[in-house]
């Protein structure tokens, strides 16, 4: 263990410089401004915009996508592919200076294309999906707000700008999860998401302050250039706090519990925010901060461990769930675990993680929208035990979902194969026995993924019908919903190969990313690993097919220890309740008690004990001046005593 937990820099950090933006690239700020203005119009105009509001929302994202594409091609022709655009001085207090500025580089560019491209398709789908909802205009307002915040997050040129976007997407996500406020579960889920995200946000905020304190800046280039000069311990703390932020946003261990509950929101929200984009912000944060993470091997080990652990947790729980959206949500948790594994491995694997992130954006959005299409035809039923045989009735949904399914389980030649398999290989390329640990976890995860995704697919589209009585003839969704499905399905087929052959080279120009490092010799040969991963995939899928080809019981069955634990989210909720919720409630109660009556109650309690009358106790109530005065006096005595203790040299 000794040589693993060293604080030695994994690789020296070089100086980082960005070029100034000109030409078309000087208008990248429009990428953020267009959806933002559209959101403002939709939210401020109120009902007057009800009739055409959704089309404005769709158009705003479409325009952003075209602009993003144009900027992307512009960037390709440049020598220094990191272009900075400083808009104005945001905050400057004495030595501290924060720029309100944007950075358009290869990493940001691929994110912009993912967010606006997949975002556009999901917006299009939502026009139809939300057609019968009275709040459709408001929904598109929040949706555009989200896209603006997400673009700001990936386009900022310093950590404070990233934090601005980070808070913005959190806010939009919170509003959208609670969108169907009349459902109590939606309100609770919104609250849970909010609170767990705040834990992560606090980590990120403190990390940013530490950068200020130690480096005096939060600009990416200055931080990355200066991080080499920091003490190992500082880098470790900084990285762990950033990781805490990333785990909160991306639903990774130990803050994973909110993501599946967030599925209470409308399905397009689940597809865009909780599958394709926002939840990958944590991966973006770590990839962007790679000079920090690469500067400390312990840090990388922690990230890899979080990734490996989460990917297994996600698989195990996903295999025990019966709600179609929740299974997909746990699979998102698990797939992001693969991405964390990738970014944690460092070196060339950063690019692999980004490739997987982009490919995942396509196939997961595809499957979520497919699930929405199924629910649309089945009276909002979400229980996969009550589906079955839908392949005959929903041909388009069936075929497109099949593409997504084959992609996520990593079957050759679908996109998941090209994006996930290299991460498994990279996990086997570590130097010591941890290669077996993490490589093994990734391989087992691939088998489990094949199992539970096949279970989902078979139970939904094949086998006997197990519908509730009120459904006679499920219908296929209208064209406005199926066209995005078809486009995303094409992406699920082809994106992986295209991305895995182009993106690593493209990302090379981003600071520290790309294949500049020669991989270590893997403990197994490349061919063996590929064969193994295909074999476990086929085994997992085959087992699921064998078990579920004849359907399943429509009610929960008694189960063994492991399945029960998985159904209860491996008891992580119980853990959170004991460790965070109960003490929080206790603290609140204690403070309320002390603030209102504590000191007075003490005094009166003594008096009552002496007087011996219960009548006196009943008179205890809040708001007496004398109890306030007693509390002030107590405080005063403590403060004076503390000052005198300082004087005597006990404190300070």
């Amino acid at each position, binding site marked *: 263990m000794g040589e693993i937990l060293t604080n030695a820099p994994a690789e020296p950090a070089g100086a980082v410089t960005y070029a100034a933006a000109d030409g078309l690239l000087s208008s990248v700020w429009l990428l953020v401004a267009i959806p933002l203005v559209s959101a403002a119009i939709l939210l*401020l105009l*109120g009902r007057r915009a009800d009739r055409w509001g959704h089309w404005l929302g769709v158009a705003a994202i479409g325009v952003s996508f075209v602009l993003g594409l144009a900027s992307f091609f512009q960037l390709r022709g440049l020598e220094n592919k990191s272009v900075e655009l400083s808009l*104005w*001085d*945001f*905050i*400057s*207090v*004495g*030595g*501290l200076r*924060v720029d*309100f500025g944007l950075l358009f580089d290869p990493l940001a560019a691929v994110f912009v294309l993912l967010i606006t491209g997949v975002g556009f398709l999901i917006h299009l789908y939502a026009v139809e999906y939300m057609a019968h909802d009275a709040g459709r205009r408001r929904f598109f307002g929040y949706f555009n707000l989200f896209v603006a915040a997400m673009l700001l997050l990936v386009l900022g040129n310093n950590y*404070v700008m990233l*934090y*601005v976007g980070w*808070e*913005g997407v959190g*806010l939009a996500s919170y*509003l959208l999860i*609670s*969108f169907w*406020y*009349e459902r109590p579960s939606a*309100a609770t889920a*919104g609250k849970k998401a*909010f*609170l767990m995200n*705040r*834990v992560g946000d*606090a980590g990120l*905020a*403190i990390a940013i*302050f*530490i950068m*200020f*304190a130690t480096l005096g800046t939060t600009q990416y280039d200055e931080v990355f250039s200066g991080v080499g000069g920091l003490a190992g311990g500082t880098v470790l703390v900084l990285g762990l706090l950033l990781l805490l932020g990333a785990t909160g946003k991306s639903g990774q261990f130990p803050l994973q519990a909110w993501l599946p509950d967030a599925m209470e929101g409308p399905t397009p929200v689940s597809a865009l925010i909780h599958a394709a984009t926002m939840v990958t912000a944590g991966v973006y944060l770590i990839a962007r901060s790679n000079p920090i993470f690469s500067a400390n091997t312990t840090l990388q080990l922690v990230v890899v461990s979080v990734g490996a652990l989460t990917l297994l947790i996600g698989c195990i729980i996903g295999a025990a769930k019966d709600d179609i959206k929740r299974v997909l949500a746990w699979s998102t948790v698990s797939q992001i675990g693969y991405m964390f594994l990738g970014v944690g491995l460092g070196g060339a694997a950063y690019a692999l993680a980004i490739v997987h992130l982009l490919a995942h954006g396509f196939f997961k959005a595809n499957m979520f929208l497919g699930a929405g299409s199924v629910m649309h035809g089945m009276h909002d039923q979400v229980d996969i035990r009550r589906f079955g045989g839908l392949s005959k009735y929903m041909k388009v949904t069936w075929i497109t979902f099949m593409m997504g399914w084959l992609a996520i389980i990593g079957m050759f030649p679908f996109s998941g194969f090209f994006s996930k398999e290299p991460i498994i290989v990279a996990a086997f390329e570590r130097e010591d026995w941890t290669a077996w640990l993490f490589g093994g976890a990734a391989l087992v995860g691939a088998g489990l993924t094949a199992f539970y995704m096949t279970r989902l697919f078979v139970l939904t589209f094949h086998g006997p019908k197990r519908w509730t009585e009120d459904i006679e003839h499920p219908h296929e969704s209208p064209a406005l919903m199926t066209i995005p499905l078809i486009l995303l399905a094409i992406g699920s087929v082809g994106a992986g190969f295209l991305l895995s052959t182009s993106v690593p080279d493209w990302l090379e120009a981003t600071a520290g990313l790309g294949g500049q490092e020669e991989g270590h010799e893997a403990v197994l040969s490349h061919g063996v690993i590929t064969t193994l991963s295909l074999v476990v995939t086929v085994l997992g899928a085959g087992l699921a097919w064998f078990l579920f080809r004849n359907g399943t019981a429509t009610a929960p069955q008694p189960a063994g220890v492991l399945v029960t634990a998985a159904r209860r989210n491996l008891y992580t909720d119980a853990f959170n309740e004991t460790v965070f919720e109960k003490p929080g409630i206790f*603290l*609140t109660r204690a*403070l*309320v008690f002390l*603030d209102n009556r504590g000191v007075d109650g003490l005094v009166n309690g003594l008096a009552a004990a002496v007087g011996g009358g219960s009548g006196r106790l009943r008179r205890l109530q809040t708001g007496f*001046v004398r109890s*306030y*005065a007693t*509390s*002030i006096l*107590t*405080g*005063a005595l*403590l*403060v*004076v005593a*503390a*000052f*005198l203790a*300082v*004087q005597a040299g006990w*404190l*300070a």
Partner: protein
Amino acid sequence: MSELKLPSIDYAAVAPILIMLGAALVGVLVEAFVPRRSRHLAQLTLALLAVLAALTMVVLNADDRLITAGTAIAVDGPTLFLQGAILVLAAMALLLIGERALERGGAFVAQAAVTAESADDRRQAEGASGATEVYPLTTFAIGGMLIFVAANDLLTMFIALEVFSLPLYLLCALARRRRLLSQEAALKYFMLGAYASAFFLFGVALIYGFTAGVPGRSSGVDFATINAAVTESPASRVLLFAGMALLAIGLLFKAAAAPFHVWTPDVYQGAPTPVTGFMAACTKVAAFGALLRVFHVAFASANWDFTPVLGVVAVLTMLVGAVLAVTQTDIKRLLAYSSIANAGYLLVGVLAPSKDGLSGTMFYLVAYGFSVLAAFAVVTLVRDGDGEATHLSRWAGLGRRSPFYAALFTFILLAFAGIPLTSGFTSKFAVFGPALAEGRAWLVVAGVLTSMVLAFPYLRVVVMMWLSEPGESTPTVAVPGALTSAALMIGVVATLVLGIAPAPLLDLATGAAEFVR
């Protein structure tokens, strides 16, 4: 008996103070001689003109760095910045106080002496013209605050404390509706305020004793003498530290820091809402101005030994404010606890003994003042037949009824929650940054964590306003008159501008962040 020698006074430098106190005296005469019908307009105009004139003098004095009136008044960067802040915020508060379009006769009772809840009282609540004495009282309070932040010795500071506190006690008792609550608030504030003043005065006495016996200096309570005595006095340091503690208690009471915050929720709830806004914005500025001066000037050479103690107070204040805000069901009490938590964040700035810490704290005071006044302006608008509807359950679905005002309030709440692109974010940044640079990491960690908690009650209100159906009891939002609209818009625009481009005000604060000694 030696001849009494009058100190020389730089009248231009103290002109803002003189203008406000003079206007207050004229206001008393207006009460006596102007006919009742035209008093309201005359008083409001007088008060606003006085504030404007005083503000002009502050701007003209912008480059003054001097001590005048013997050693009683210091006119320097922080004084002028804070005086300007108090005057601008007071002008907004006066706009709220002067509003009469929302309710017949305005937010204040006609005759405070009528027995509460009696038939007479109900009759006068229905539309008797409100007492115009509120204007001279407010003007006196503003004058007192201007002295408070300029005071260069502890006695002047004490007198200023009383000059601005006494009118505030009275103002709290003048709510038109819920008279008992209002009177109770005033009485509580008065009794506890008197109690806290006693601590302050006792502290002054101990410090005076400590300054005795420094070779070549006479004893005194001006800050230069205290500062010299801290390093040179032969007296026991117990006197110094006990005195410092008692002084701090008196000031922390006004600043609403735990455990001296207990009065805040009751008083904020009972006082007429415009007065609550005035206290939340201007009293905070004054109290923290005094804290800054006492600790940065008088006790600067005590090596900041007291930082751990005040740090604990700061953490406790943040914690109490944030956690208890979660349990509140009344919007005014919620804002009261939020103001307590903000006192904690401001203390973090006070405890960063650097120029940046000073300028960050001053920036925070201004930014917070604008937001909190705008918040209370919205509170005055949400009403039903019985006046303001402050219970939170009544705010459910407000976004459906009045999207515009609900949107403005949402924006203010997001600012309180410290969401970026509002002044709430930049101002927290401006105090936490310097505190961290001075090695107060634990305070910053506590600040970040509690502000994460504090965001929750704010967003709960946002969600209630937007994501609930309006119920039977959802009140209407009154259409505000020009005065409230002006105050509200100034507050909202300032919150936005200071959130997006805070640099000009920060530069101003940085330029002003140097005390004369």
